[in-house]
C-alpha cells in the first residue's frame, strides 16, 4: 500500500509527463504549421522550397518538442491544484487536497488516517486520474518516424544532385530514390552490380504512365541544347584519345578521300590494278578512319576484281557513304542489341535492317540505317560497355519529339548517347531496354565533354532517372 507521499509523487510524475507530452505535441504542431505555411508561401511565390528547409524544420521541431517536454516536466504546477484536479476527476470530493493541506499545515491524525482510508477505498486505482493514453507510444513512434521520413526523403532526393559533385559510381547509383524505381520501372542490376532502370519500349504492354512532375522539355529541345555544345566539344577534342574523333578523324577522312579519288581516277582511266603499296596506303587511310572500313577496303582489294573494286570505291566516295562512315562508329554501341541477336558480317552491312527495337535515331536517316547495321555486331558483344564511344557530334535528332516521361514514347529516349542496353525479356511483354544511369558519369568522362555539355547531359539523365515511371 502506498503512502500519501508516494501517491503524490507518482501523480506529480504522471502529471509532468502528460503536460510535457501536450506541450511537445503543441510544439510539433506549430512546427508542422510553420512548414505548411513556408511551403505555401514558396509555392505562391513560385520558388521551389529549398531542399534543406523541411529536414531543418523537422529537426528543429523535434528538438524544440524535446526541450518543451523536459521543461514542462521540470516546471511542476502547485500540488494543491494538481490534487484538487485529481479529486475532481476521481470524485474524491477534495479528499486528496485536504490530505495535502493537513500534511503541510498539520491537523488531527484521526482526520488524516480516515481521509486516506477513504481515498484508497473510493479510488483504489487512483493512477487513472492522470491516464497516459495507450496511443501515446504509437503517436510518439509515428512522430519520430514521420520526422525521420521528413529528414530522409529530401536527403534521398538530394542525392543525385549531390552525386553530381562527387561522381556517380556503382555504389552511389544504388541510392537512387526507391519511388522512382518502384513506379512502373523494375529494378535490375548490370554486370557491375549497379542498378539500372528497365524501360519498356513503345508498344509494350507495361505502360509508362506517370508523367507528373516531369519536365515538360522535349527531347528534341534537350538535344538542340546539346548540339552546339557537342560541336564545340568536337572542335576542341583532345588528341590521343582512344576514339577517333574531331579534327583527327576529319584529317583521316580527307586523306582517305584523297587516296580513294586518285585510285578511282586511275581505274576509270583504264589503268592497272592498284599496287600493293597503293592498297596499303588506302588501307592505312581507311584504318585511320575506321577499322571496319579498312577491312572492307582490304576485302575489295583482295578480290582482284577491278569492277568490284571500282564499285566499292565509288560507294565509299558517294556522299551518303561519306556521311555514314562516321555514323557507323557513333551508333555502333550506343544501343546495345540483345546478345542473342545474330551478328552480321561487314559484307552485309549496307543492306542489313536496323535491329528490332532500335532507337529512333536509326529511323531518322535512311542512309545511316545500313551503316548502323554494320556496327551492330561489335555493339552486340555482351561484355562490351554500352557507352557511346564514337564522335560526340553525331547525336541523332529525334524523329518525333516527345515530352520527357510521356507515356508510350520511352523508346525515343534511347537515342544516340543514351547509355542503354537491351535487357533479357523476362516479362514476356516484349523487348525491354535497360537504362544505366550509373554509367552516365563514365560516359561523360570518356567523352571529355566541356562542362556545359556534360551538365546538360547529366541533367537529362538525372531527370529521366528520377522521374521515369
Amino acid at each position: 500500500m502506498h503512502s500519501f507521499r508516494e501517491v503524490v509523487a507518482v501523480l506529480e510524475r504522471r502529471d509532468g509527463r502528460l503536460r510535457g507530452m501536450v506541450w511537445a505535441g503543441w510544439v510539433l504542431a506549430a512546427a508542422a504549421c510553420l512548414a505548411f505555411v513556408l511551403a505555401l508561401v514558396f509555392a505562391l511565390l513560385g520558388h521551389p522550397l529549398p531542399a534543406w528547409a523541411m529536414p531543418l524544420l523537422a529537426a528543429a521541431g523535434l528538438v524544440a518538442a524535446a526541450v518543451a517536454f523536459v521543461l514542462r516536466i521540470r516546471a511542476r504546477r502547485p500540488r494543491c491544484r494538481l490534487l484538487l484536479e485529481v479529486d475532481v476527476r476521481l470524485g474524491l470530493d477534495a479528499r486528496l487536497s485536504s490530505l495535502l493541506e493537513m500534511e503541510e499545515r498539520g491537523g488531527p491524525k484521526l482526520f488524516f488516517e480516515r481521509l486516506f482510508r477513504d481515498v484508497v477505498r473510493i479510488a483504489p486505482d487512483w493512477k487513472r486520474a492522470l491516464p497516459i493514453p495507450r496511443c501515446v507510444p504509437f503517436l510518439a513512434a509515428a512522430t519520430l518516424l514521420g520526422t525521420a521520413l521528413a529528414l530522409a526523403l529530401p536527403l534521398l532526393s538530394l542525392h543525385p544532385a549531390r552525386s553530381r559533385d562527387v561522381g556517380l559510381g556503382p555504389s552511389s547509383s544504388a541510392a537512387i530514390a526507391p519511388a522512382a524505381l518502384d513506379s512502373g520501372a523494375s529494378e535490375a542490376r548490370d554486370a557491375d552490380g549497379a542498378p539500372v532502370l528497365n524501360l519498356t519500349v513503345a508498344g509494350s504492354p507495361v505502360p509508362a504512365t506517370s508523367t507528373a512532375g516531369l519536365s515538360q522539355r522535349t527531347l528534341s529541345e534537350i538535344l538542340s541544347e546539346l548540339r552546339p555544345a557537342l560541336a564545340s566539344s568536337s572542335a576542341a577534342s583532345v588528341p590521343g584519345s582512344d576514339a577517333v574523333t574531331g579534327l583527327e578523324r576529319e584529317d583521316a577522312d580527307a586523306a582517305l578521300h584523297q587516296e580513294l579519288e586518285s585510285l578511282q581516277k586511275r581505274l576509270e582511266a583504264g589503268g592497272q590494278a592498284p599496287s600493293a603499296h597503293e592498297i596499303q596506303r588506302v588501307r592505312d587511310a581507311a584504318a585511320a578512319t575506321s577499322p571496319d572500313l579498312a577491312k572492307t577496303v582490304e576485302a575489295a582489294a583482295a578480290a582482284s576484281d577491278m569492277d568490284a573494286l571500282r564499285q566499292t570505291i565509288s560507294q565509299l566516295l558517294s556522299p551518303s557513304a561519306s556521311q555514314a562512315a562516321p555514323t557507323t562508329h557513333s551508333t555502333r554501341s550506343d544501343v546495345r542489341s540483345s546478345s542473342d541477336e545474330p551478328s552480321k558480317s561487314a559484307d552485309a552491312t549496307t543492306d542489313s535492317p536496323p535491329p528490332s527495337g532500335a532507337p529512333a535515331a536509326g529511323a531518322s536517316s535512311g542512309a545511316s540505317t545500313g551503316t548502323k547495321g554494320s556496327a551492330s555486331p561489335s555493339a552486340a558483344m555482351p561484355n562490351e560497355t554500352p557507352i557511346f564511344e564514337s564522335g560526340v557530334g553525331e547525336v541523332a535528332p529525334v524523329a518525333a519529339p516527345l515530352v520527357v516521361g510521356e507515356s508510350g514514347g520511352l523508346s525515343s529516349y534511347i537515342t544516340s548517347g543514351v547509355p542503354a542496353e537491351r535487357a533479357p525479356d523476362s516479362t514476356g511483354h516484349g523487348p525491354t531496354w535497360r537504362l544505366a544511369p550509373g554509367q552516365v558519369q563514365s560516359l561523360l568522362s570518356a567523352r571529355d565533354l566541356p562542362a556545359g555539355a556534360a551538365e546538360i547531359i547529366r541533367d537529362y539523365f538525372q531527370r529521366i532517372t528520377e522521374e521515369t515511371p
Partner: protein
Amino acid sequence: MTTEVSLTRALDVFSRLERVLGEVIVGQKDVTRRTLIALLCRGNVLLEGVPGLGKTLLVRTLSHALDLPFSRIQFTPDLMPTDIIGTNIIRETGGDRRFEFSRGPLFANIVLADEINRATPKTQSALLEAMEERTITVGGTTYALAEPFIVLATQNPLEMEGTYPLPEAQLDRFMLKITVEYPSLGDLVRITTLNTEAAGIVFPSPVATGQDILDARSVVRDLPIAEGLREYVARLVLATHPGSAQAPTMVRDFVQYGASPRAAIAMILAAKAHAFLSGEVHVRPSDIEAVFLPALSHRIILNFKGEAEGASATTILRDVWQKVPVL
C-alpha cells in the same frame, strides 16, 4: 486537538440536536441545519420569512434543546438601545448610593431579536458590538457575553411600512441569512396535526450543554479545507464585485458592492460546519455550495439598475456560482 472521542461526541450531540429540532420544526430541515451551522461557527443568523412559518418557534425550540439562557427581544420602533443592552441605575444600599449595571436581555446565550427591522437603526446598532465582539460596553465598562452566544434575528420581508431596513454594517454581521420557505403539503399537514392535538407542541428536553457546543466548535475548526477550495471561495467572493475580472456580466450590471472578506470567512467556516454535520472530516465542494447562498445573499448590494429591473441577490449569486469553476 480533535480526538476520536471528541469527534464522536460532537457528532452525536449535534445529530441529536438536529433530530429534536426536526421533530418540532417540520419541513424546515435546511433552516434547522443552517441554524446549527451558525451555532457551530459562532455566527449569528438572520431568519427572513413571512409570519407564521415558525421562525420564532425554531429559536425557542433551540433554546430548550440546548439548556442555555434564552431571551427574546421584540423589536419595535420605540425600543431603545438601553432596553436591550442594559443600563446603569442608581442603587441605594444602607445610605450609600452607587451606580449599578442592570443587564439587558442581550446578556443571554441565545437571543431572539424578533422583527429586528422594526426598531430604529440606533437600536439595531446596539447589537453590533454584541454580535461581533461578544461584548457590551456601557458607561465605559465593557462586559463580556457568555459563550456560546448567538443572535437569531427575524424579519418580515413583506410588511415594509414602518420598518427600518438593516444597514449594511449590521447585515454583514449576520453570518447567514436563512430564508424560511413555505412548507410542502405533507409537511403542512403534519404541522397542523402537531399543533392541533391535545398535547400541542412539546418542546424537547435539553440534549446539549454550552460546553458541548464549544467542544463541537473546536472540532469544526480542526476540519481541513484544501487550499484549492479556499482559493475557490476567494474567487467566488471576488466574483461578486463588479470591478473584479472574474465578475460575470450580471454582477457588473446589477451589483453596487460585493461581499466582504468576512463573507469569505463565513463561507469557509460554514462549509466546515456543514461538512461536520454531514459526518465528513473535510470540506467538500458540495459543502461550499450548500452555504454559498446563505452566506452571501445578504452581503450583495444592488445598484439602481438592479433594483429597477427587479434583480435579486439570489439570482445574481446563482449566476456567479455557475460562472466560477472549482478548477
